[in-house]
C-alpha cells in the first residue's frame, strides 16, 4: 500500500513548484512527480518584437538569477547576426555573471537551503562561547567573539518568545533528521543574518555596470557601460575601485564564511547520502578567458557525462536537432494539435500550444499517469539530464581542468570521502560551494584583466557595426548559451525582416524539474527523490533537502517554450 504525499507550495525557491510522492509503509519514496503550476507564455510575447529589445522581456523570466536570460538573449542575437563584441564587453559580462553567481549561491545556501540542515530553534540552547571556539577554529572571519554570538542568540530567543516567529513559524524544528549541535546551529543562524546584510553589497557591481539590480541593463553588441577614466560622468577610477572593493569583500565572505560553514555543516551529514538521481550531467560551459566562441578557453568546460562515467566526456552541439529536444508527453501542451506521442522538437522547430488537462482547482492530487506539469521535457539525445553546479564540477573534473580537479580532490580528502558521494543532495550542495570559491577568484581575475585592458588604452565597450537592422540579413538564426547558476541555459532565436520570428529558451530548471518522458525516464528531481526515506510523513524535510539542493527556479522553467510565428497558437483551456 503506498500513500500519496503532496508538498505545494514548495517554499524557499523561485516560482511555483508542486511535488507529489508515493511513499511505502516504511516511509521510502517509491515514485516522485514534479509539477510546475504556473505559466506566463513569454515566448508568445517576444514574438514580432525588435530582437535588440528581447533581452529585457526574457530577463523577466527570473528575478533571482537576474541577468542570465538577458545575457543568453543578447548572445543569441549576436550569434545570429555574427556580431563580435569588444574585449571590455566580454570582461564586463563575465564580471556581472560571476558577481551573480557569488550572490546567488550564497543566498541560496543561507536563505533557501540552510534551514533544511539547521534547526533555528535549537540555536537558543547553544553555549555562545563554544560557538565562538568553533567559529575561530574553522575561519579567520573577524565576527566570532562569544559576545557576538550571545547577541545573535538573544535575537533568536526574543523572536521565539514573542510568539511571532515570522518566516521561521511552523518550521520543522526538532525533526529527527536535524543533526547539528546547538552551537553549530547558532553559528549558521548568525551567518544567515550576516549574509542577508552582505548580499545587498555584492550586487552593487551590477548597479555600477548595468544600472540596477535586480534586472540590470544589457545591449546587443556589447555593453552600454561608459568606460572613461577621465570623465566625471563615466565609469571612472572611483567607480572601478568601488567594484574592486566589492569583489574583495565578496571573495572574503565566500572563503571565510560560506565555505567553512558549508564544510562544517556538511561534515555532520556525511551519512545522509540520498538525492543522487539520474547521474547524467550536462554542461554547456562558459567563463571564457577570451571570447564565448573559444571553447578551449572555457574555465568551466563544456560536455556531457552519462551514467556517472567520468572517464568519458561527450560533445554537445546546440544546433544539432538530435542533441537538444523537448518532449511533451506529460506536459500541458500539444504539438501540431496533438498530445505528445513521443514527438520531440528541437528549439529551432518548436511549437507552443497550451493544453491544460489537469484537474480543476481546488484539487487534492494530480493525475500523474497523464499530463501533470507546465514544464516541457528537454532531453539530450533522448537522455534525462541533470544540469547545474554538480554537473559543472563533474564535467570539469572529468575534463581534467586543474583548478576543478584540485578543489574537488582537496575537499573530498578533507572530508575523507570518495568522489562517488558527490552523486547526492549534499554532493550538489558542496559542488555549489566549490564553484563559488573558484568563480569568486575568476571575478577578481577578470576585474584585474579589465583594469589592465583599460590601462593599455582600450575603453571600447560596444560594437555598433551591426546595430542598425538595415545591416542584417533577411533571415538569421542563432543560439545564445551560458552557464547560469542553476545550470546550462540556451536561448534560440530566429530573426526575420528585423523582427523576432521564433524564440525559445531551454533553461536549467526545465532540465532538472522535467516530468517523465515518452520512454518513462523520469526527470532529475524525480530521480533524486526516489528511494529516500522520510522519517515523518507530515514534515517533508527530506524532500526539501533534495529539491533545494537543485536550487529550483520555476518561473524560469515554465516561462518560455517556443513558437512558430506563422501558426496561430492554440490556447485550449481545461
Amino acid at each position, binding site marked *: 500500500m503506498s500513500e500519496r504525499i503532496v508538498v505545494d507550495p514548495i517554499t524557499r525557491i523561485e516560482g511555483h513548484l508542486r511535488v507529489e510522492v508515493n511513499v511505502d509503509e516504511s516511509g521510502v519514496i517509491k515514485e516522485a512527480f514534479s509539477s510546475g503550476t504556473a505559466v*506566463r507564455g513569454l515566448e508568445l510575447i517576444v514574438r514580432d518584437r525588435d530582437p535588440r529589445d528581447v533581452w529585457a522581456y526574457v530577463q523577466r523570466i527570473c528575478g533571482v538569477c537576474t541577468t542570465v536570460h538577458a545575457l543568453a538573449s543578447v548572445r543569441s542575437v549576436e550569434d545570429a547576426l555574427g556580431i563580435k563584441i569588444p574585449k571590455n564587453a566580454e570582461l564586463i559580462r563575465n564580471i556581472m555573471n560571476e558577481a551573480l553567481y557569488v550572490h546567488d549561491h550564497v543566498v541560496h545556501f543561507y536563505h533557501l537551503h540552510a534551514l533544511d540542515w539547521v534547526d533555528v530553534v535549537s540555536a537558543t540552547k547553544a553555549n555562545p562561547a563554544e560557538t565562538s571556539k568553533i567559529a575561530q577554529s574553522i575561519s579567520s572571519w573577524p565576527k566570532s567573539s562569544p559576545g557576538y554570538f550571545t547577541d545573535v542568540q538573544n535575537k533568536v530567543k526574543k523572536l521565539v518568545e*514573542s510568539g511571532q516567529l515570522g518566516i*521561521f513559524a511552523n518550521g520543522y524544528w526538532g525533526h529527527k533528521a536535524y543533526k547539528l549541535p546547538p552551537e553549530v546551529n547558532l553559528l549558521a543562524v548568525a551567518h544567515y543574518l550576516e549574509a542577508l546584510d552582505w548580499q545587498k553589497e555584492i550586487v552593487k557591481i551590477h548597479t555600477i555596470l548595468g544600472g540596477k539590480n535586480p*534586472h540590470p541593463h544589457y545591449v546587443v553588441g556589447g555593453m552600454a557601460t561608459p568606460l572613461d577614466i577621465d570623465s566625471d560622468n563615466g565609469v571612472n577610477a572611483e567607480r572601478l575601485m568601488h567594484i574592486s572593493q566589492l569583489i574583495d569583500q565578496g571573495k572574503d565572505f565566500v572563503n571565510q564564511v560560506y565555505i567553512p560553514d558549508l564544510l562544517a555543516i556538511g561534515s555532520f551529514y556525511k551519512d545522509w547520502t540520498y538525492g543522487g538521481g539520474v547521474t547524467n550531467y550536462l554542461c554547456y560551459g562558459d567563463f571564457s578567458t577570451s571570447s564565448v566562441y573559444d571553447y578551449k578557453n572555457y574555465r568551466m568546460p563544456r560536455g556531457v557525462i552519462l551514467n556517472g562515467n567520468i572517464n568519458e566526456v561527450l560533445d554537445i552541439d546546440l544546433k544539432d536537432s538530435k542533441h537538444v529536444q523537448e518532449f511533451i508527453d506529460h506536459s500541458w501542451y500539444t504539438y501540431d494539435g496533438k498530445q505528445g506521442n513521443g514527438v520531440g522538437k528541437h528549439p529551432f522547430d518548436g511549437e507552443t500550444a497550451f493544453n491544460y488537462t489537469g484537474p480543476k482547482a481546488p484539487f487534492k492530487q494530480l493525475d500523474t499517469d497523464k499530463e501533470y506539469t507546465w514544464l516541457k521535457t528537454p532531453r539530450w539525445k533522448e537522455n534525462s539530464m541533470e544540469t547545474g553546479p554538480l554537473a559543472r564540477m563533474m564535467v570539469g573534473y572529468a575534463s581534467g581542468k586543474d583548478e576543478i580537479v584540485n578543489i574537488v580532490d582537496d575537499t573530498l580528502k578533507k572530508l575523507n570521502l570518495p568522489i562517488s558521494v558527490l552523486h547526492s543532495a549534499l554532493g550538489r550542495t558542496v559542488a555549489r560551494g566549490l564553484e563559488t570559491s573558484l568563480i569568486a577568484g575568476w571575478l577578481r581575475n577578470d576585474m584585474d584583466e579589465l583594469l589592465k585592458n583599460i590601462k593599455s588604452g582600450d575603453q571600447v565597450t560596444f560594437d555598433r557595426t551591426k546595430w542598425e537592422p538595415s545591416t542584417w540579413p533577411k533571415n538569421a538564426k542563432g543560439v545564445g548559451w551560458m552557464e547560469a547558476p542553476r545550470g546550462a541555459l540556451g536561448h534560440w532565436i530566429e530573426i526575420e525582416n528585423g523582427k523576432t520570428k521564433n524564440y525559445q529558451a531551454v533553461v536549467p530548471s526545465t532540465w532538472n524539474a522535467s516530468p517523465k518522458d515518452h520512454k518513462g525516464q523520469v526527470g532529475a528531481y524525480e530521480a533524486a527523490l526516489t528511494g529516500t526515506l522520510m522519517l515523518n510523513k507530515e514534515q517533508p524535510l527530506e524532500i526539501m533537502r533534495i529539491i533545494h539542493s537543485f536550487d529550483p527556479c520555476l*518561473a524560469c522553467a515554465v516561462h518560455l517554450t517556443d513558437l512558430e510565428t506563422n501558426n496561430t497558437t492554440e490556447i485550449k483551456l*481545461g
Partner: protein
Amino acid sequence: MKRQKTVYEAAIDHGFTRRDFLKMCTALAATLGLEYTQSDKVVKAMETNTRVPVIWMQFQDCTGCSESFIRSSQPKTESVLLDMISLEYSEVLSAPSGFQVESSMEQVYKDYKGEYIIAVEGSIPDDDSFLSVGGKSAKDTFIKMAEGAKAIIAYGSCSSWGGVAAAYPNPTGAKPITAHVKNTPVILVPGCPPIAEVMTGVIAYIITFGKFPELDHLGRPTSFYRHRIHDKCNRRAYFDAGLFVENFDDEGAKQGYCLYKVGCKGPTTYNSCAEMRWNGGVSYPIQSGNPCIGCSEKGFWDNGPFFERRAKIPGTQTTINPDEVGLAALGLTAAGIAVHAAGTVVKKKKDDKRGEEE
C-alpha cells in the same frame, strides 16, 4: 496570542541601543522624505506600534520584487523582518512548505483580520489553470485574503499594471491585482522591480504613522512617484543644452550626455531612480549609460521599441520652463525630434498610448 512587542521594544531586544534606534528612525524619516525635525514623530510611532503581520503573495512573477525588497539599505532587511513586520507567509523565505506554510496564512486570516497587510508580486491570470498554488486557485486565495486585509501593497509593475505577462498578446489573460480587489485599499508601487528603499519605505510609512501615504490619482505614493526621472536626471543639463548620445559608447555617452535619442523613457516615467538611485544610492540605469525603459509605467512593455521610439517630451510639469531655459539648444534638436515622431506615429500600434504619459 500575547501582546506583540512594539518596534522599539523589539529593536532593544534585538540588541540595538536606543542611539541605534534613533539613528534608524532618522534614516527612515529621510527615506520617507520627511524633514529632519519630523524624525521625532517616527521615533514616537516606532515606540508604540507593534510588529504588523504581513502575507507576501506571489502570482505570475519572477521573484524580482522579493529580491529587490531584501536589498534595502535603510531600513535594513533584518530590521524590517525582525523589528517592523512579522512576515508570516513568503514563498521565498518561509521555513516550512506545503500545508504548514498555508496554515500560517490561515492563522493570520483568523487572528489578525483587518490588521494584516498583503504584499503582492505578479499578475493574476483569468483562468485558474494557468496558476494554482497548493492545489487551489491563486485568484480565489487572493480574493479571500484581500477581504480581511488592512491594506494591500502591489509591489512591481506586474501586480500594479499586469506587467510582462500582460504584454501583447497577453497569452494567459494576466491582470493587475486591482481587478480582484473590492473594498480593501491598494497602494501601487510599480517598477520592474521597484527600488528596494521605496518598497521598504512604503511599508515603514504605514507601520510608523498608522496611515497610508499620500497617493496620486493612480494610487502611487507621491513621496516616490511625484516626479519624472527626467526632472531630476543627472544628464538633464545636457538635455537642456541639446547635447545627446548618438550611439552607445560614443564620446557623448562617456561624457554623460543625454540618452534621449537612444530611446530613454525618463521624460515619461514617474519614479525615484534619479533621486534615490539604486542599491543604496550607487547608480541607476541612466547613470550607467543605459536608456530608461520606463519600467514603472503602465503598459511600458508595449510602448517600444525601447531603443527606437522616442519619449514625448513633457511640457509645463517639468522643473524648468523650456520656454525660458535652453530654448536655443532645444531648437537645434526640435527638428530632429519632430521628424522622428512623425515616423513613429505610423509604426504605433493601437495600444501604444498606454504608459506614454502616466
